[in-house]
């Protein structure tokens, strides 16, 4: 893990929020917009440190709410909650397996909007809800699930292509060199 990964994740979050606001094609076709922030949070929680998880929750949530009618900061809490739980359990998760990534993406993409709406209702807001919201929730869950393995592949490729690998120390020590032959 290095700082390149953190910058890459934050840049991806910025572009994801921009894409969700600027390209409403998916909303026209399926009636719902897929949110990629929970997907990025799954990747960040499994592959980076807690600082990156916190930064993604803070900045991603703020960017999302800045373009939305949500009260500012309401998306921070669900994103961080998802990231924190996955981060704490990540030693038990088979993070390299696409099916595990798929399932984690589905759970995160289902939990994030549900928690956000719950917070909105708790705060006295009146979001647009109805039976159609169930369909939107399913689309968001399925979209997030499908996007997660793709995001993992993309970041792994980026890491290999652009990230630097830490230099491994050699085990050679001159004072431990075995001198052969007569002195």
């Amino acid at each position, binding site marked *: 893990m290095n700082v390149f990964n953190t910058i890459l994740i934050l840049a991806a979050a910025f572009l994801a929020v*921009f894409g969700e606001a600027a390209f409403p094609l998916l909303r026209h076709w399926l009636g719902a917009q897929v949110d990629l922030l929970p997907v990025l949070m799954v990747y960040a929680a499994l592959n980076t440190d807690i600082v990156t998880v916190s930064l993604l929750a803070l900045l991603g949530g703020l960017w999302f709410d800045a373009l*939305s009618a949500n009260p500012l900061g309401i998306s921070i809490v669900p994103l961080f909650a998802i990231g924190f739980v996955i981060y704490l359990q990540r030693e038990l998760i088979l993070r390299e397996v696409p099916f595990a990534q798929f399932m984690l993406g589905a759970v995160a993409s289902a939990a994030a909007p549900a928690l956000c709406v719950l917070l909105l209702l708790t705060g006295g807001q009146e979001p647009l809800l109805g039976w159609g919201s169930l369909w939107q929730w399913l689309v968001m869950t399925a979209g997030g699930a499908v996007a997660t393995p793709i995001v993992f592949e993309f970041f792994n490729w980026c890491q290999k292509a652009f990230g630097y690998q830490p230099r491994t120390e050699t085990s050679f020590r001159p004072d431990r060199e075995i001198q052969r032959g007569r002195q």
Partner: protein
Amino acid sequence: MLKKKHYLALGAVTLMALLVFSLPQRATSRLKLAAGGLFLPLFGLLNTAQQLPVDAANAVMPRRALLKEIGELQRENQQLRIQGAQTAAIALENDQLRALVGWQRQTPWKLKLANVVMRDPANWWRTVQIDLGSRDGLRENLPVLTPDGLVGHVAAVGFARSQVVLMGDPNCRVSARVENPAHDVGVISASGPLDGSLVELTYLSGNAVLKSGQNVVTSGEGGIFPPGIPIGQIVDSRAVEFGLYTEARVKLSANFGALERVWVLFP
């Protein structure tokens, strides 16, 4: 399981979230606009990219087609001028009559064209952002419409962009009048989250006689929307609460799926 670093991260994020929640409304709006301003270069790039094919198509358009279009536009312009002159005469007559009966004089509408730059990324709100702001004289609660009908109203104003709440959002309620013999008045309220072209017209009187296809316009009550702006047509109606009042579904006149340019109305 929880290390010191984890506690610190948890505390920092919770503190930041609480700090943002507890900010005064004005500071939150400013912070929101500042954070949203980070996206402006990207939206500028997107607009340029979308404009490129249009410019390229215009560059290769044959001169004959352009001349034909100019001719048609000149004819249409002349027709509209004649209609405008007639409307001005009617308006003058209307003003004189209003003065005779002591009614307040009506002021003509002023309109400003705005481009829709982005839509709400959240599925539970129905808002868009337009490229006009306080520098263009916009203020909250100004009506927004298209030539087809009412769209919504300005909810928040930044320096160079503003947020418009669309009809069908729970935060946009419009007093509406059905163009039937009884002129029944109701309130346009939130619709379902999937079909943005249908809204609910509620609190109509229990004995309202509604027919499919009847026009619905703004009633002018409420102080935000001037009267007579088209909203849509009645689709169907039903009695609610054992006939206490009537609800109707209204098909909106404006095409919300293809909102690109809207007009902000300065009453």
